[in-house]
């Protein structure tokens, strides 16, 4: 197992190299010019050109790519064209809010969606099942920003229970931290809950028809034990897989959620950087997201062995 993990971690290197090449090339050929954005609306063409030169954007592709890769290999992600701050500093400033949002959403989603899916499978064909599936369709269909606005309107503006926006660092206290994240996590979690609930239901339906479940029932095992000990554990592998794949959903959703709730996270940093063509920041953040995604999938692979002892690497 240990050797497998080492191999997988090493395998991230070529993956990251491909991502790096892809991102750099894509930005190189994409239209847009950070120098024009920096120069402002009143700038003359000569001003724009001078800024482009000062940023080194007039240099050939290979020179710029080689320099960037060399710096990355030396642990230097570069300096933001706009803020003049190191990209690593900007990422450090933003990583806690995004990580907090994703972890809370994950906890919320799994703790709601899995029981929902299990109950829907258990009560297959009843109104409970239809309600759960109706919610799942709704969760998939309603955009995150709409859910966000509705939640903010009800719980912040009308009821005045929670703040509309912002983020409080965890070190300021658990409740202040939680207070700012509850609404964003619910808004972001909607799609995720729908996805996991549907997969849980489908997998549980299949498992509940297996012979060993019938045997357990015949032996008089209680319904709760059948559902959560016998059936759910055997249905866990596809559910865990979906949770892992869904991380991409969370990363994408965080961009919108952070904008709606004014959370200073990596999602907003990415959007701002793209709109301004802040190449070093875009490259740094995309590399980070790719790395996280690869690691999450590795974690999922490792978790398989816990749920299904037959799986060996």
């Amino acid at each position, binding site marked *: 197992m240990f050797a497998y993990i080492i191999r997988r971690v090493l395998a991230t290197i070529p993956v990251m190299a491909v991502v790096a090449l892809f991102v750099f090339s894509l930005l190189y050929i994409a239209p847009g010019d950070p120098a024009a*954005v920096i120069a402002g609306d009143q700038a003359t063409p000569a001003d724009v050109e001078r800024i482009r030169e000062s940023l080194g954007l007039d240099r050939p592709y290979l020179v710029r790519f080689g320099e960037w890769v060399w710096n990355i290999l030396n642990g230097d992600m570069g300096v933001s064209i706009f803020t003049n701050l190191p990209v690593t500093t900007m990422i450090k400033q933003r990583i806690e809010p995004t990580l907090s949002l994703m972890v809370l959403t994950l906890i919320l989603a799994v703790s709601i969606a899995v029981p929902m899916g299990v109950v829907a499978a258990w009560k297959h064909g009843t109104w409970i099942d239809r309600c759960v599936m109706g919610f799942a369709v709704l969760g998939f269909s309603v955009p995150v920003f709409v859910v966000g606005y509705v939640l903010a309107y009800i719980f912040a503006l009308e009821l005045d229970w929670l703040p509309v926006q912002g983020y409080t660092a965890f070190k300021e206290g658990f409740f202040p931290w939680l207070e700012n994240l509850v609404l964003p996590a619910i808004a972001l979690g909607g799609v995720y809950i729908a996805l996991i609930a549907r997969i849980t239901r489908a997998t549980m339906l299949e498992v509940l028809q297996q012979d060993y479940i019938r045997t357990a029932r015949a032996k008089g095992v209680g319904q709760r034990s059948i559902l959560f000990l016998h059936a759910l554990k055997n249905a866990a592998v596809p559910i865990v897989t979906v949770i892992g794949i869904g991380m991409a959903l969370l990363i994408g959703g965080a961009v919108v959620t952070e904008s709606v709730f004014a959370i200073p996270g990596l999602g907003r940093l990415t959007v701002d950087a793209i709109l301004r063509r802040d190449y070093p920041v875009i490259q740094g953040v995309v590399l980070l997201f790719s790395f996280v995604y690869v690691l999450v999938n590795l974690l999922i692979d490792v978790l398989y062995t816990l749920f299904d002892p037959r799986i060996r690497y």
Partner: protein
Amino acid sequence: MDRRTFIKVGAGLGFAGHLGLSAPAYSQGAAARTLKFVPQANLANFDPIWGTQYVVRNAAALVWDTLFGFDEHLVSKPQMAEGASVSADGLTWTIKLRAGLKFHDGSTVHAKDVVASLTRWSARDSMGQMIKAIQQELVAVDDLTVRWVLKRPYPKMLMALGKNSTPMAFIMPERIAKTDPFKQIDEYIGSGPMRFVKDEWVPGAKAVFAKFADYKPRSEPSSWLSGGKHIMVDRIEWIVMPDPATASAALQNGEVDWWENPITDLVPQLRRNRNVRVDIADPLGNIGTFRMNHLTTPFNSVKARQAVLAALSQEDYMRALVGDDNALWKPLPGFFTPGTPLYTEEGGDLLKGPRNMDLAKRLLAESGYAGTPVTCVVAQDQPITKAQGDVTADLLKRIGFNVDYVATDWGTTGQRRAMKNPVGQGGWSMFHSWHAGADCINPAVYIACRANGDAAWFGWPNIPTVEAAVTEWFEAPNLDAEKTAIRNLNRAGMENVTYAPTGFFLQYQAWRANISGVVKGPLPFFWGVSKT
């Protein structure tokens, strides 16, 4: 005590201590001394000479001071300067600094700092470049005296030093001001009324300013950028909110105190809230524009440009921008800001009265237009350019142009508009923008009204009669002569269609009822603003 505070207190009884509820970040008094402000855009950089965005200028006005500053009558008044004098031949300007001014690092402001700062500024600013071109020498005579010797008189010197258009002539310590004007500074030390708290700066999210204890405000009452800049709070937090609906909700909920530019759609909702005040932000407003490329077909023909003006309905543009609120817009048959001394409608007849589609079609036919595509570049991520672009596309089609509508973003527009290639090879026919009214009060600060060919703003109009009028204005000995020159400029610009003005529009600002001292102006002025 609001409901949320009550719940917190209740919860705090059970969870006091380690969970943090019993130790709010600010006490009631501290909260009243912190002003939370939602700026118009993200403060992505903080060098007001290198980055000329308005948001940078607005923040910089807190941290850096200027020798002179515009008051509400657009008169340049001494600020860091004790005063200035000019020799009888108009060639030598002597500027005396006020004694005892300090930078935020504790050092004293000296004339050498002014020399370095003006040198850097004059490399980037259009007025500064004009002065630099006729500069004999710029020297520090002693610690408090600067002498600027010119080869030719420059009567607009005080305007250049006190204007609020970007880049403003901010004064920095010499060591910082010696930075290449095309490279960013990384120390934000000024002598203004607030210090920039760099450690708390999260670009894209938050910028913090703390009161500078050693600031020496002038004794005169404050008026825009002049007079005593008395700061009434200890701390100002700029909170960047990309989503207007969130900013609106945060203001109504009391999470922020002042929102610089609420979108028109949300204003009725804000007005209904008894805890929120709404008023015009900047009486000098904005001028909507679209620029046609004078180098390529079809707009290299003046007839084609006139055809557009003949059919252009400014009301359509303004409705698309501000909706049904008639207080927010007015027609603009000219290039200069309404309500300012040089405003004129001379030559603007083509934009007045009922729109004449027949005339437009006739002019287009006379231009020899043969159906070549008109590449209309429209930035979709800026509501103002998007709204104008949609109106333009419809207008052009009705006149008979073959429109190639290019939906893109502002970053791409910025790059594409600099290209002089023909349409079809990466070039463009027109793009949309807008100018702050404060930047359209005279030709010195108004690059878009110039028509000096390759040196002109994008679209590169080459209209000698416009440039002759600009020269006439620069050399004008008094206001009457200036007005005559501007009438000539407006007439020449309208006849030859330097660009198409789409109307004059205003924007709102909104703040909590417990905030007082908010004034109307071309930028948010924080001095005199208090919170209870």
